[in-house]
């Protein structure tokens, strides 16, 4: 009985291969059904996202099951199985547990710290539960995985900083304005980068968008997409008193916004802050504007360096995350060991003996008439006999393989719960 994980991710397989799996999937439902039909498989779970495919199995015969799973996953495709093996990783036991924890806490993600993976894993688990493919081990393992993800997120700064230029711009805007929902954005130049930044901003609830472009048609097109309005380049300065965020990305050789354009602007704005994002090369916005009160100018290099610092920081934080994963893997292993028969029987006997002793100690002082050593011994051996007789059947039940219908963990776990052995120690 072992936990095995078969999978491929963005590191083990190039995108062409991952695409194939993602596009013509055999369907999670069918896969789960076929896997759980195997006699050696007790529990299974299947996760598929655009960056990874993971199959998690609790099985009696790990080697066989892996072969089976691989052929189920890729068998009817044009590549032969051997070829697929180059892109796969097969992990067993605590390696598999560690990998799952790293996946759930986004340490294994392409963009480290991205939050989506946890939701995807939760969906996969729910799906597996609905199809009755999970049991004692996977239930516990997945809940631990979610817990680890939560710990890593709250105890490290892995997901707290932006790692792309447009996200960095949004993050800055949020630190200046707090709430973006009532803000007005002016987009100067309708390039691709600007569009991306705009998309991020509008996802954070911008109130109004104005697009200015040399060719008005392009401005109109983009504006209509965001339900905004379009203006000509000459109108920009007139708009400055009323907008809050300016994103500029024109191909102009000179500054589109000069120091002179913003003279006296703050008075008209009644000192409301203005955030200017310059993602053009060469620059569109005079950097000296940043020195004026309540105006903040960031150019592409500055945003880029924010991102770089954040990426470095994330790597530092990831180290902390790895430590947490390691800790939790060990804890889980410990729990898994308790599911073995021998320690459970041992604990059961110890527990019963403990109760017997305690009861004897309580009773004997009250039996003053029992004076001789012999009588005391008789009581002692009688209590021992009762305990032994009581435990005989449960212990035999645990010991005999054939009584468990192939799922001994379940029975061990049930035994432990009936006798509350997890609380006793």
């Amino acid at each position, binding site marked *: 009985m072992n936990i095995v994980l078969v999978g491929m991710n963005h590191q083990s397989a190039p995108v062409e291969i991952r695409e194939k799996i993602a596009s013509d999937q055999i369907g999670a439902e069918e896969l789960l059904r076929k896997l759980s039909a195997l006699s050696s498989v007790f529990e299974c779970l299947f996760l598929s996202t655009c960056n990874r495919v993971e199959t998690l199995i609790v099985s009696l015969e790990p080697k066989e099951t892996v072969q089976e799973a691989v052929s189920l996953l890729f068998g009817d495709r044009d590549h032969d199985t051997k070829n697929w093996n180059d892109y796969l990783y097969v992990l067993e036991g605590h390696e598999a547990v560690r990998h799952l924890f790293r996946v759930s806490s986004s340490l294994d993600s392409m963009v480290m710290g991205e939050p989506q993976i946890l939701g995807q894993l939760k969906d996969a688990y729910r799906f597996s539960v609905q199809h009755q493919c999970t049991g004692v081990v996977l239930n516990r393992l997945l809940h631990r995985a979610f817990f680890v993800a939560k710990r890593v997120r709250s105890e490290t*700064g892995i997901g707290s900083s932006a790692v792309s230029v447009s996200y960095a711009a949004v993050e*800055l805007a949020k630190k200046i*304005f707090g709430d973006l929902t009532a803000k007005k954005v002016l987009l100067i130049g309708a390039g691709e980068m600007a569009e991306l930044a705009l998309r991020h901003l509008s996802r954070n609830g911008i109130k109004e968008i104005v697009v200015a472009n040399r060719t008005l048609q392009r401005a109109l097109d983009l504006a209509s997409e965001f339900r905004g309005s379009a203006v000509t380049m000459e109108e920009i300065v007139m708009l400055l008193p009323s907008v809050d965020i300016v994103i500029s990305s024109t191909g102009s050789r000179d500054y589109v916004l000069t120091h002179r354009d913003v003279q006296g602007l703050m008075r008209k704005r009644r000192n409301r*802050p203005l955030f200017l994002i310059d993602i053009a090369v060469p620059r569109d916005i005079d950097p000296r504007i940043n020195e004026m009160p309540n105006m*903040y100018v*960031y150019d592409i290099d500055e945003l880029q360096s924010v991102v770089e610092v954040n990426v470095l920081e994330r790597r530092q934080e990831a180290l902390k995350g790895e430590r947490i994963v390691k800790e939790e893997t060990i804890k889980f292993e410990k729990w898994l060991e308790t599911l073995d028969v021998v320690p459970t029987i041992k604990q059961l006997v110890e527990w019963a003996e403990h109760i017997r002793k305690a009861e004897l100690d309580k009773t004997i002082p009250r039996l003053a008439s029992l004076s001789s050593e012999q009588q005391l011994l008789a009581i002692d051996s009688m209590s021992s006999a009762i305990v032994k007789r009581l435990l005989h059947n449960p212990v035999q039940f645990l010991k005999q393989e054939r009584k468990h219908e192939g799922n001994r963990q379940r029975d061990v776990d049930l035994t432990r719960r009936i006798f509350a052995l997890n609380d006793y120690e």
Partner: protein
Amino acid sequence: MNEFLFWVCLCAYLVGTILYVLYIFIQRKKLSLMGLVFLAFGFSCQSVYFILEYLEAGHFPIVNFQQSLSFFAWAIVGCYFLLQSKYNLRVLGSFVAPLAVVLMISSSLFPLSALPYKPTYRSVWLPAHVITVFLGNGIFAVAFVVSVMYLLQENTIKKKTLGFFFRRLPPLDRLDALNYGCLVIGFPLLSLGMITGSIYAQIGLGSYWRWDPMEVWSLITWFMYAALLHQRLTVGWQGRRAAIMSIVAFLVLLFTFLVAGTWMKGYHTYAIPEGLR
């Protein structure tokens, strides 16, 4: 008993402060919650302490410098609770709590001796004056702290360093709004404090205004906050300038309280043991 309560309160504030300062470094919500619990506990102890003092002295118990310092700390913590419940800015506690502790520690350096009783202590205008003044002071202390936070945050954004404080401090907009909110609440309290004070002076000393150093400096403080409020309302001052002005005004307020109230001669002057003067 009273003295014991005082020390319990000081310790609670100290532990709360340590937790809050740890919170800013480690960023665990639990730390700030525990910090809040300790501050609340200290605050309740101190409230009971004042009530007991009142019962013992038979009049409103804030009449000497030691008591004023500790009452100032109490007012700051109280104002923080009010603002925390409204704005929920946990990190604010990391900045406010140390201020309260410093005041409590300075208060503890003075002897806990009672002053000779004066009949005017029984006047209802004494608590009216002291409570309004110190609630105003407490609010302005929070405004001061918020302004410092604003400048720190603004600096990281302007200088593009985005370091330690960038992530930990709230957005500029919220800090500025809170600063303004404090001013709007604090200014009427300060004004009321000065009016009740002059009435108390009329009753106790026979004249509304005597150009006592404390009175003069209070008036200067009042003018500074009035100017700040005026600039905000008419010109729309906000952000950096308003924050700096708020800091300067609070420093003047502190000077009024600490220096004008002690080292300058006047009837307001708190009784300070000779050695310290």
